[in-house]
């Protein structure tokens, strides 16, 4: 099916050209003119769209922050891989009544919010992310951005109390 569609794209493009133009094009020009991205699951279109952006994001961060990163101790587990940060946050903060991650502290975090910030809005992460969930790289980023002040305050309180006991919390 995919091959049939690809062939149709090529045929249709060739028909749209004046005689001899296609034959005069280099292999590279032909590839560029009829490049097609085939998907059999339209939900994965989103992941495909994000994949290249994530590569660019990493090179942008490396350029901007690599020197600053060298000044930090490896024990602090600081990373420029935002996907890694999103996964760590999803593990630490997700909250679900029926399914909990063993090292997750979503319930503790929410209890702390209720006790210390009774009028705040929290974007609760309802699912953990083990690196396979669709859209988690942007979904968790939204929660990270919305809850950033609460997350940071909670982490400061936690780390002040327990030191570097939890690698996940230290990393975050």
């Amino acid at each position, binding site marked *: 099916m995919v091959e049939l569609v690809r062939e149709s794209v090529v045929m249709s493009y060739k028909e749209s050209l004046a005689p001899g133009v296609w034959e005069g094009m280099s292999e590279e020009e032909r590839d560029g003119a009829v490049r097609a991205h085939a998907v059999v699951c339209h939900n994965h279109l989103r992941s495909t769209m994000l994949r290249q952006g994530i590569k660019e994001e990493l090179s942008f961060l490396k350029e901007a922050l690599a020197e600053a990163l060298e000044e930090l101790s490896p024990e602090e587990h600081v990373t420029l891989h*935002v996907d890694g940060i*999103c996964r760590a946050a999803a593990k630490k903060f997700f909250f679900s009544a029926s399914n909990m991650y063993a090292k997750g502290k979503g319930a503790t975090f929410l209890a702390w919010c209720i006790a210390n910030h009774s009028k705040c809005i929290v*974007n609760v992460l309802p699912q953990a992310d083990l690196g396979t969930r669709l859209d988690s790289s942007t979904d968790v*980023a939204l929660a*990270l951005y*919305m809850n950033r002040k609460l997350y940071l305050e909670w982490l400061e309180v936690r780390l002040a109390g327990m030191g570097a006991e939890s690698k996940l919390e230290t990393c975050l």
Partner: protein
Amino acid sequence: MLTVIRARAVLHLKVVRPMQFFTNSKEVGYSPADMGPVADSLYELLCDLEADGSKGMDIGLDVFKAVGDSPEDASPEQRAKDQTTKEAYKSWKLDYLKRQGQCTDASAKVPMWQLAVAGMFDPGVR
């Protein structure tokens, strides 16, 4: 670091969530073969952003507003299908922005995603 997390959050609200609607809506009923207009709109956005990234910071940006526009030579059946798509998308957007969340002590409800959008484009909003 916060900048890239914010950029991802903007992408989630402006691109990923609407695309989830187009792929999962029973009312629209799109299969992978129907995703052309969605992919075209996305491609147009990515080209625009490559030329000028600030275009992504428009709070009123609707990346997929052209999805459901019928071509001039569309059949009546196709026009009816496109109309359904347009109406379903419009209705989903309104519902999504109206969806409410409670504050931590349950004393008040707020339109959660409207607040998220506002916070994304104006970080002073909380």
